[in-house]
């Protein structure tokens, strides 16, 4: 055989070169594995014998992609005024969501209900959420509604007997909502999943249901009226068990981690009273220094103070090392050291407006005030402002900080600044060491 042209000769040579690797003598890898047994694709090149290919175990995904947690603040609107300084309607209706990891920037507004422009929307009277049901609950003076946190859609809405609703809290198992009636003398016990009424706790000595607190185990509810006598109730049996009478009308109050103490704001007091739950007795009255507030409070020509009392807002840090009390006279917060036998005033700090409510955030890192201020609990510095999508501060008292993973609520707080057993235990353990 002979070749007539150099081109053909070159083509044949190339062909031989191309097919050379497919000749039987060369169908092994360099370490002797037969090619048909060795994976060797461009996206999965052959590796020498004895070494593993991570791709054999499925894709290795960077851990950063697994971080789909979001830490958000849900602010219900309109959620109560800030001492009459601002209209509670100035931020419209809905739940405004802020991103706690991004300087509290606006995320979205979740529609709640459509209210005609000609009507004033009903105030949101309370807010709660449950990781178990993955729902957030909004109470207004008129209805109670649940919204699915995965879709932001309303799941159910109830008006019950027409006297619904005041502050809600949900039991830790997510099964039960305890909700005040709208200024009546009973509290509703509700199925948190579907809104069905389970029963009521009658509290005849606590007419005008208003503020409340639920013990960490979900068994004991403290029901405060716009009056002097608080009723303590047993949630499982739906029975009132005792009452605690304070020296004046009870305003916001908190309970400690094991529900043995109540710290309550009262009318005509910049400070608080402490009640012992076991005995049902007030055991201590703590007043802020008189010069801070008594002259102003006694001056009838003075402006209206937040909610008509010197102090409307009280919260324990989750570990109960501090008790924060709103100072409506001076637009600030009083911080009490709560590590001793009785709380002692250790510092104050100013707020940008009247702060009529304090909600402690996750891990006790931030405190959220209805002055729209976000305060770093450790430094007492204002580190952020809660603003709506138009940049207007939101003076809502009904908000929750919530932590999500893959769209599922994993942790939240109570609207009320109650002590948290695990945080208290951690602090006490550290002290013992």
């Amino acid at each position, binding site marked *: 055989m002979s070749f007539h042209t150099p081109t053909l000769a070159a083509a044949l040579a190339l062909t031989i070169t191309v097919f050379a690797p497919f000749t039987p003598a060369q169908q092994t890898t360099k370490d002797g594995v037969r090619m048909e047994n060795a994976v060797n694709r461009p996206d999965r090149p052959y*590796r020498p014998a004895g*070494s593993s290919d991570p791709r054999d175990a499925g*894709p290795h995904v*960077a*851990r*950063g*992609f697994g971080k*789909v947690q979001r830490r958000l603040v849900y602010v219900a609107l309109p959620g109560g005024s800030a001492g009459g300084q601002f209209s509670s309607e100035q931020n419209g209706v809905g739940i405004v969501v802020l991103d706690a990891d991004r300087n509290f920037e606006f995320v979205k507004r979740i529609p709640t209900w459509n209210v005609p422009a000609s009507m004033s929307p009903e105030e949101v009277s309370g807010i709660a959420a449950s990781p178990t049901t993955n729902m957030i609950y909004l109470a207004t003076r008129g209805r109670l509604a649940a919204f699915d946190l995965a879709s932001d859609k309303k799941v159910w809405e109830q008006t019950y007997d027409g006297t619904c609703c005041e502050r809600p809290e949900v039991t830790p198992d997510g099964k039960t909502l305890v909700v005040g009636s709208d200024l009546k003398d009973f509290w509703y016990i509700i199925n948190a999943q579907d809104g069905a009424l389970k029963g009521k706790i009658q509290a005849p000595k606590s007419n005008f249901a208003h503020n409340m607190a639920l013990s960490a185990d979900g068994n004991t509810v403290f029901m405060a009226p716009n009056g002097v006598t608080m009723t303590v109730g047993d949630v499982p049996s739906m029975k009132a068990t005792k009452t605690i009478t304070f020296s004046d009308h009870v305003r916001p109050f908190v309970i400690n981690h094991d529900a043995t103490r109540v710290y309550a704001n009262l009318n005509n007091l910049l400070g608080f009273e402490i009640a012992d739950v076991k005995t049902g007795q007030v055991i201590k009255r703590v007043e802020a220094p008189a010069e801070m507030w008594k002259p102003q409070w006694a001056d009838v020509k003075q402006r209206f103070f937040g909610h008509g009392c010197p102090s409307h807002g009280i919260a324990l840090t989750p570990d109960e090392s501090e008790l924060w009390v709103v100072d409506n006279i001076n637009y600030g917060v009083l911080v009490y050291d709560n590590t001793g036998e009785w709380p002692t005033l250790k510092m104050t700090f100013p707020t940008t407006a009247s702060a009529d409510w304090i909600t402690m955030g996750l891990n006790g890192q931030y405190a959220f005030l209805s002055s729209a201020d976000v305060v770093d609990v450790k430094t007492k510095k204002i580190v952020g402002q809660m603003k709506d999508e138009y940049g207007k501060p939101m003076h809502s008292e009904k908000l929750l900080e919530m932590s999500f993973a893959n769209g599922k609520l994993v942790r939240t707080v109570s609207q009320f600044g109650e002590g948290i057993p695990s945080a208290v235990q951690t602090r006490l353990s550290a002290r013992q060491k």
Partner: protein
Amino acid sequence: MKHLLAWAIIGATMTCITVTAQAASDVPDFAAVKTVCGKCHTTAVFEGKPRNWDRWNDVFADMTQRGASGTNEDLGRVTRYFLENLTLVNINTSAAEEIAGILGVSDEVAEAITERRRKQPFAGLAELRALPGVDSAKLEQRRSRISF
């Protein structure tokens, strides 16, 4: 003769395909990067801007918060692309997982590297190159991102 010519052309074409595919072995990974990251921005925002693996994971977390998503396979490809092309590594301090990804070596080789550095830290590329299983070509290609 015509048959011979046809075979020659087929052979040449196959050669080209093989060469192209081998040269661009990370093309599927880059395609996944464009799928996952390119929904919101161009790849120019990170190309040529290497960071250490912790920082990239912060970025991945940040992007995930902002809506970046993909199939496990896509995210795996994105992971590999960033490790092999955009990640800084310190051979004497980085985790074995990072070393494996960045040097393109097996887990066993990466473990051998960390084992060796426990006894004596690496002084430079030459010592690394001398280890069995380390690909000199990859090492050379990625040397600007490797420190000791």
